[in-house]
């Protein structure tokens, strides 16, 4: 019994799941109707469904971020890419004569995806070809991207009235919101591509040691380039959802701080910022935890900005639990014997910090 408990405790998804369950339980105690789901008009409605629907963009962004982080990089520009792609799509739709025409919507999506591909390629070239530190390379686009998004929208909030586009964020399919399926589809696609082929292992090996992977015959540079493009595409789709949710594109506020939430989701999911390992299931759990936290805070009538306080507490708690040094300290205190020196090589710190 004790052994089994220990195995469960040491599973990498134990803590994220525990946090999620505790949060859901606390919510249910606070508000008994929290978990209730009802069928209305052939669609499922309820807080859990809302959490799933609202977490869809974050899951998408976090998926791309997981791949980037597993190569030892980081992508700060996803929020700006969300804003730019949403702005381009909404601009194209708003200029069309018939906003409900599916062709218009598809053209708009294609244009925005094209722009996202270009931006992702820009990030990828900066990191893999020119060799700039990822955090800085993507910082450039994070700063300039907001400006570009405002340039596209000309500083205005573009509102559109397009049924098909709205469906991306609010539509339903098989009684569930369409956004959930899009996020799920993307997650399954990424999972299949990385875990059913050698791609995932190659990405992890590049994250572990780029030079060694190159010498082993992996095109490291190309892999690094690829993950930034994938991250940008994920961010663009998330951008469509965000703008579709409100049927308008705001260059300033669309996707604001989503990069931080995404990094948080990845870290909560157990993926180390040092790279070399990634856990897609953990990332999805992390995104759900963050969205549940946000919804909880809203439900308790606390202002969204104050929600950041709770986020700070969760970040620190999760990071402390996952930090080898903290675990070692805790274990020493519990057992009273000296722990094996925490294996945190200097390389990690040098590559990831700053």
């Amino acid at each position, binding site marked *: 019994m004790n052994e089994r408990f220990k195995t469960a405790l040491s599973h990498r998804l134990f803590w994220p799941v525990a946090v999620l369950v505790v949060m859901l339980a606390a919510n249910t105690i606070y508000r008994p109707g929290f978990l209730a789901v009802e069928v209305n008009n052939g669609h499922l409605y309820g807080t859990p469904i809302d959490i799933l629907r609202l977490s869809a963009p974050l899951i998408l962004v976090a998926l791309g971020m997981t791949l980037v982080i597993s190569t030892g990089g*980081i992508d700060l520009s996803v929020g700006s890419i969300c804003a730019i792609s949403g702005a381009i799509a909404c601009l194209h739709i708003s200029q069309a004569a018939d906003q409900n025409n599916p062709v218009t919507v598809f053209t708009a999506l294609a244009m925005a995806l094209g722009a996202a591909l270009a931006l992702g390629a820009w990030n990828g070239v*900066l990191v893999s070809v*020119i*060799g*700039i*530190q990822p*955090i*800085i*390379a993507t*910082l*450039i*686009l*994070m*700063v*300039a*991207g*907001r*400006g*570009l998004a*405002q*340039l596209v929208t*000309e*500083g205005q909030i573009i509102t559109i009235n397009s049924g098909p586009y709205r469906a991306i964020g609010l539509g339903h399919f098989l009684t569930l919101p369409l956004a959930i399926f899009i996020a799920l589809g993307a997650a399954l696609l990424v999972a299949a591509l990385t875990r059913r082929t050698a791609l995932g292992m190659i990405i992890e090996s590049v994250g572990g040691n780029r030079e060694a992977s190159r010498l082993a015959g992996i095109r490291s540079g190309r892999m690094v380039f690829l993950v930034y493009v994938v991250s940008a595409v994920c961010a663009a789709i998330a951008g469509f959802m965000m703008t579709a949710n409100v049927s308008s594109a705001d*260059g300033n506020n669309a996707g604001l701080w989503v990069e*931080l939430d995404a*990094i*948080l989701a990845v*870290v909560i999911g157990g993926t180390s*910022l040092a790279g070399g390992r990634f856990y897609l299931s953990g990332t999805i759990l992390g995104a759900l935890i963050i969205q549940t936290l946000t919804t909880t805070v809203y439900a308790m009538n606390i*202002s969204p*900005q*104050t*929600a*950041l*306080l*709770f*986020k*700070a*507490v969760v*970040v*620190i708690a999760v*990071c*402390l639990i996952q*930090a*080898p*040094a*903290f675990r070692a*300290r805790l274990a020493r205190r519990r057992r009273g014997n000296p722990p094996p020196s*925490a294996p*945190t090589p*200097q390389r990690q*710190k*040098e*590559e*990831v*910090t*700053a």
Partner: protein
Amino acid sequence: MSTTSLTAGPRWARLPRRHVPVLVTLALLLVMYGVGVSQYRAFSNVQVIFNVFIDNGFLLVVAVGMTFVILTGGIDLSVGSVVAMTAMVSAWLLQSGLPAPLVLVIALLIGPTLGFLMGCAIHFFEIQPFIVTLAGMFFARGMCTFISGASIPITDGFWTTMSQYRIGDPRGNFVSVSVLIAFAVVLVAAYVLAYTRLGRNVYAIGGNPQSALLMGLPLGRTRIAVYTISGLCSAIGGILLSFYTLSGAPLIAIGMELDVIAAVVIGGTVLTGGAGYIFGTVLGVLVLGVIQTLITFDGSLNSWWTKIVIGGLLFAFILFQRLIGIRYK
């Protein structure tokens, strides 16, 4: 500008490679100023330069703190939020009737305390600075709205005096008290980095933490110290901002950390640590300020061009540092 002599002055003739980024920034600044003067007649007015300092005094102070952190190879994302929190707390305490000196002390203690705690978390638990300061950023921003969801005006006599007092010559050119405070911070920081043990340790740790540790330098103490310094600078920046705006607003200084990091990088400090000067950071802040002034003077360009230009400059400088071969992973 006595900071010039601290950094680039005496070795000017030899032009060592590590001074090149700062000199390029200086050249860029002069070119931009020259463009401004040639395009707009009013630009040559001395007050334009003074206004750049008045408008960016708090940014300068915060950037100085960030320079310390970046020199050790770390990063501090919490600065913008700490600035806002300091301004917010002072406005709130003044509103509830505390005397100004006490409020100043309390407000100046918050930043360093938070910085110290973050430094401890970074050093003792070996969590990435990025994540720890991200949590600090969330915490400070959350505290702002926790105090009040709306902006709190400051009517205290000391604050209004500091805000409105003008130090100037008879021709009407003036600077505010904040500018002098910012200069004082810059001078002290430049002295500490160039001539004290702490400063040497900061450069050594940024160059290579492992060698620094093997040399017997106090790695942990220095690392915690730089985050505390950054917290203190943010707190001073917050006070200056509250002098400038005479209020505490929960959403002020959002995204300021990016401006600050951009200023430090444009000023020639290398983000992996170990190379850079306070004087360069001053130039970086000035470059940002002059860009804003140019865009304001032009009138036809919109405010978002500022962001695009800053992004472009960041790119150019990073590329440049890479080309001249300064260590840049």
